[in-house]
């Protein structure tokens, strides 16, 4: 008897430990994932610069300073041969391999500096130019052999400096990690989510109000409920197929734009918002409706003056969570053309653009090793945005949730 009990208690302890182990395992997965991303990504926020003096007195840049604010100023400066001037200056200052030490797009940084301050075009100035991807990686991670020696030499000369990689926050996509940035994708994401919100939120809330407050019990209502529940479980890529067939091929809405992406995500998140809103509306006690009806409010007044304001915190919480999910969504947007390489920051809701998760996907396919840390850095930014949205939702829930 005693041994049996001991055995049973041992089994109990084992079972409990297995349970604890399962919880710890889930936690460990998350911790490991975050650790890998932060470990890889932290370096993606910084970049190695090489100090290069450029003497515009001996190699003049023949551009009319008055035209630097023209819309085609970029083209003008490029035509004036700035790239060659910068390459020449690099070779002059760093030796024969100077041109390879700096990024091939380094002259674009000089260009934007000149556009900000035309004074730089005269005389000799030292520019901190982005190093080539190879040098940057070697400088940050350490390297051996000839490359390591060269970097040690540059360090000794005080040419190398590592700082925050501003182009990463300022630029759109590029094929060179030295100038590739997430601003284009971030802006695309904001525009896309804005469109999705503007469509999904009103539609979802109104649909929820109808179903919860007014809908008669009949076949139509059943059909609406069934389709909302099914839509919530349809794989996201199916929405991409729908958008491709209907929005792009039938309506001809501008391809790869935040508009079509936002419409797709709106259809995808609407069921989530409807379900969350219905739960919030259901939680408003009937006594409030009865009281309002009792003092003579019409059914529409009851809902819009009393039920909706009380349910709004719950609705907003559900909406924010739905929007966070839409913000992280990639698959349906692949199908509406948003995976194309977009080198410009999108101008409006109809211009081609990409979104942050898509940028991560595109960079993960890049051959250049320098993109590994850029990808992880972009993931950190995305996770940060998503976690803040979720935290906001939880805060709203805790602050405004009422138990009746």
């Amino acid at each position, binding site marked *: 008897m005693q041994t049996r009990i001991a055995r049973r208690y041992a089994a109990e302890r084992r079972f409990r430990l297995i349970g604890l182990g399962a919880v710890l395992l889930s936690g460990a997965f998350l911790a490991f994932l975050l650790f890998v991303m932060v470990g890889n990504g932290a370096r993606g926020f910084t970049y190695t610069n090489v100090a290069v003096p450029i003497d515009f007195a001996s190699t003049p840049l023949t551009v009319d300073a008055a035209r630097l604010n023209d819309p085609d100023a970029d083209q003008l400066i490029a035509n004036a041969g700035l790239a060659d001037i910068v390459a020449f200056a690099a070779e002059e200052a760093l030796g024969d391999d100077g041109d390879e030490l700096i990024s091939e797009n380094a002259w674009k940084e000089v260009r934007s500096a000149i556009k900000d301050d035309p004074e730089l075009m005269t005389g000799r100035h030292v520019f901190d130019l982005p190093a080539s991807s190879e040098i940057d990686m070697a400088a940050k991670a350490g390297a051996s052999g000839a490359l390591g020696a060269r970097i040690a030499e540059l360090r000794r000369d005080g040419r190398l400096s590592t700082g925050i990689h501003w182009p990463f926050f300022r630029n759109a996509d590029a094929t060179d990690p030295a100038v590739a940035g997430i601003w284009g994708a971030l802006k695309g994401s904001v525009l896309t989510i804005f469109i999705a919100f503007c469509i999904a939120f009103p539609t979802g809330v109104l649909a929820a109000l109808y179903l919860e407050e007014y809908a008669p019990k009949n076949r139509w209502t059943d059909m609406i409920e069934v389709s909302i529940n099914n839509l919530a479980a349809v794989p996201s890529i199916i929405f991409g197929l729908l958008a491709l067939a209907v929005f792009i091929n039938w309506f001809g809405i501008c391809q790869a734009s935040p508009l079509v992406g936002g419409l797709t995500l709106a259809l995808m998140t609407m069921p989530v918002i409807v379900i969350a809103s219905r739960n919030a509306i259901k939680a408003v006690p009937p006594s409030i409706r009865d009281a309002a009806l009792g003092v003579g409010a019409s059914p529409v007044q009851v809902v819009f003056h009393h039920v909706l304001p009380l349910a709004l915190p719950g609705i907003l919480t559900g909406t924010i969570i739905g929007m966070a999910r839409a913000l992280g*969504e990639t*698959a349906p947007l692949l199908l509406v053309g948003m995976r194309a390489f977009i080198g410009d920051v999108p101008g409006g809701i109809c211009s081609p653009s990409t979104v942050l998760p898509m940028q991560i996907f595109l960079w993960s396919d890049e051959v250049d090793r320098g993109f590994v840390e850029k990808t992880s850095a972009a993931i950190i930014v995305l996770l940060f945005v998503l976690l803040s949205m979720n935290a906001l939702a939880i805060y709203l829930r805790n602050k405004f949730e009422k138990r009746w």
Partner: protein
Amino acid sequence: MSFNPAALLLLIVGLGLIGWLAGRARSAMVAGRAGAKLHSRPQYHGWYVALWLFAPAAIFLAVWSSVAPAMITNDVLASEAAQRLPAFGFERSAILSDARGVAQGDQPSVRIEGAGPLVEPYRAATQKYGMIGIAAMLALALAGGLFAFTRIRPDFRARSRVERIVMGLLLLASLVAILTTFGIVLSLLFESIRFFQLVSPAELLFGTYWNPQSGAAVEGTFGGIPLFWGTVLIGAIIAMIVAIPIGMMTAVYLTQYAAPAVRRWVKPILEILAGVPTVVYGYFAALTVAPALRNFAVMIGIPNASTESALAAGIVMGVMIIPFVSSMADDSINAVPQAMRDGSLALGATPNETIRQVLIPAALPGVMGGILLAVSRAIGETMIVVMAAGLSANLTANPFASVTTVTAQIVKLLTGDQEFDSAKTLAAFALGLVLFVVTLLLNIVALRIVKKYREAYE
């Protein structure tokens, strides 16, 4: 003055606001003059006028901005300069869109030769139809507004009218869900039927060789079995082997053993795990898990181990599904009546025996439903398999080999550069149809099970 829908929308919203103010003021005035009481409060009269001002004009705006481009193009084609255009085809449309771009100010100058002379006709036609559109829209708005404005009387039932419109809006919003469902079904069916005219459904469902080529459809290259097998292997087998035990045990521990403080910490962790975007999981699988697994496979001597393995995608997908399984199991265990648990404990069973012999059997239908939902979610998952499982269609049971899935192939088929009517593109829609039907069935069965079981205890 150009026809800019966004600006015009803003304009009629502004007009609506003026209408609201005017309607409200007039109702008060009318009531004061007649010395009667208003049936509806003044703001309802305002809303009535505003809606009459806004709605017809907005509907016209939507219709006009979708019809006008075609009319403009027609006008341009009728012009003298258009007679020299190449008859049909790609070149013609390229020239037209180039000229349109210049005329609307999207680009500074023409890029294609021959577009130059068309710019002026385009500009003229755009101007003409823009003016017509704006004039008609304003006329409609004013007519609607005036009509509503003249109807304001003390006994006019403005509130009932406005409320009827609001109810209509609510109904319309809830119909969007049905519309979306129909849109999905119809668009998938329509394109799939076109595909099945080229390739027989039997081949897609039972063929064992998958290797679609560009150009005309070749018999025998659209066999879906390798894709379906890959989907099942990753989503229903490997992912579930990871997710079910961990998810179940997590739920059991959290509901039965964990102190409230632990629960308060673990729940958000699970929520974060569920909220990580799939592209991040995919990158994690491809960057970290897959190479590690490949090294492991090589070490234990498994032939043709690939860096794009089913195992890597499946494991990471399983991790992604853990919170989902855990929350479903949590719900079902909580739904078991407390009396059953108390009864078992009172008979002297340890908590572990109670859980294993009473709670889990009682919660089993709900748990099964939850698992079916998890499977449906896993087989519809795209980014992880696109990034980590590879694109080569192998019919293999070796989890270290590269397999592909339905979703990965849909992405592959649709992201190349090709015309929309090719067999490859249509095949993606046929695969989408299969995926949609399977996930739908899984969901329906799962919800049935869960619902039936809930009723049994309530």
